């Protein structure tokens, strides 16, 4: 086959990445990690969990590592047959499907969440082909009480999400069934409850944040968002609160301002609400109080006065919505929980079932 139109280096890495076979973690192994992290900092005990690796090697009865060292193309049922002679083609194909679905996590797992929280089935290995996606989507099911319209879609190769057509009705009970047979880390289902509708808007031009609960404005805060510029501007779009964290050290080296350069900073921050995986938080920022309400001076975070940030932190939950307007840098769906970047028709198009 000619590679004439392709960059051979990129093709090579694409192929190698596609051949990565995910192993799976499990609760016992996780507990081992927590124990090690809790133990004396200077001890470095890795050997104690090595025995678990053996279990991670064999997936669906097929030892994938061996296939890949000999393989010249991405794993297919055919290449598996070559190494598992006593296995019928059908069983091998099933094993491959089991592997594709093998490792996944369900998020959220219990608890009460915000009205923007999608159901997430997070796969450790990519589910790329339409056939595989159809197989997965046909098996997973979401039940909502009261009933609400919604749809599955793939945010990317590893994240299958179900979102309602509009934000959840507060009080909804959501039950998820994922009977994906094969070896896996996750449970076969989960359920959670949707709490009060906390929907906030940040107007980056007016430097204000407006908080609505169940449709009524309950607070308005002066804020300062990211200062203009390709690397510091706060992204516009509808984001979902991913995580609450009441104390974080913000090191600018992780967002592109290395130690030693003029803008370098390393600060302890409090009352942090994470809204993107790229480092955007809603946070307490005593150092920018004078700019809050008048100008955008941060490195991408939404700065609030300490008392406001503390209130926001205490009244927020994973899954609450924050919509940002007024910048020229778009929030991309995979930079956070990006299901609300799409309109409902656009979201439904992310499903393999159409």
């Amino acid at each position, binding site marked *: 086959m000619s590679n004439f139109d392709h960059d051979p280096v990129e093709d090579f890495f694409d192929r190698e*990445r596609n051949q990565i*076979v995910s192993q799976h973690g499990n609760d016992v192994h996780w507990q081992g*990690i927590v124990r090690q992290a809790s133990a004396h900092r200077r001890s470095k005990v890795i050997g104690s969990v090595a025995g678990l690796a053996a279990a991670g090697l064999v997936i669906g009865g097929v030892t994938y*590592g061996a296939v890949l060292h000999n393989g010249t193309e991405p794993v297919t049922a055919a290449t598996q047959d070559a190494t598992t002679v006593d296995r019928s083609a059908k069983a091998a194909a099933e094993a491959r499907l089991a592997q594709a679905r093998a490792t996944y996590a369900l998020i959220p797992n219990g608890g009460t969440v915000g009205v923007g929280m999608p159901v997430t089935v997070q796969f*450790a290995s990519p589910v790329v082909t339409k056939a595989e996606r159809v197989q997965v989507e046909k098996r997973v099911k979401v039940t909502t009480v009261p009933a609400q319209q919604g749809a599955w879609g793939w945010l990317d190769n590893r994240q299958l999400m179900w979102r309602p057509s509009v934000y959840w009705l507060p009080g909804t009970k959501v039950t998820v069934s994922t009977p994906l047979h094969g070896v896996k880390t996750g449970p076969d289902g989960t359920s959670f409850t949707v709490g009060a509708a906390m929907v906030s808007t940040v107007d980056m031009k007016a430097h204000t944040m407006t908080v609505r609960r169940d449709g009524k404005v309950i607070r308005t805060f002066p804020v300062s968002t990211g200062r203009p510029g390709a690397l510091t501007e706060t992204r516009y779009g509808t984001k979902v609160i991913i995580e609450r964290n009441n104390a974080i050290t913000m090191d600018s080296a992780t967002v592109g301002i290395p130690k030693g350069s003029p803008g370098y900073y390393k600060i302890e921050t409090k009352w942090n609400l994470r809204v993107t995986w790229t480092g955007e938080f809603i946070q307490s920022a005593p150092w920018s109080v004078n700019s809050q309400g008048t100008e955008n001076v941060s490195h991408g975070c939404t700065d609030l006065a300490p008392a406001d940030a503390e209130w926001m932190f205490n009244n927020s939950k994973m899954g609450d919505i924050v919509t940002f307007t007024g910048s020229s840098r778009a929030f991309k769906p995979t930079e956070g929980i990006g299901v609300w970047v799409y309109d409902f028709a656009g979201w439904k198009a992310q499903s393999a079932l159409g």
Partner: protein
Amino acid sequence: MTRDVIDLDVETSVRAVYDAQFGRLVGWTTKLVGDPDLAHDFATEAFVKLLRHWSTVREPRAWLYVAVANLVRDHWRKRGREATAYERHGAGVPEHAALSAGDLATTLTVREAVLALPDRLRMPVLLHYFADLSVVQVANHLGKSEGTIKRDLYDARARMAVRLEATR
């Protein structure tokens, strides 16, 4: 003995990262060290560190891949010294010497390709091309400028292209 207790909120957050990233991280590492047990150990060590340093980590995925890439690099350096010592005794055979030149492009593994590069180019290539980190992320985590990383990647691509194209 002092004990640092891991905060429950931190444990919950890192567990979510573990569920999403651990499996792929082990698979990624296995491709590099060829030994699934060792890969499992490296990924485990990275998660132990992530639990301890969670409050300073903003990009958990990038952070994990950098942590493991560092362990892999150290492993390769150690192995390199061992292999050199072994060859001096006249018994060494380079790892890919058995491959015929004709099918190099289809049998070259990422481990061999990266090991064929000079040490200084290996980390940028691993993190950018194989772990899908952006040039900015690679630059930050390696403490180098973006320009340096771009130059390293360009250099590495040129070297690899020669190797891959020779086999068309």
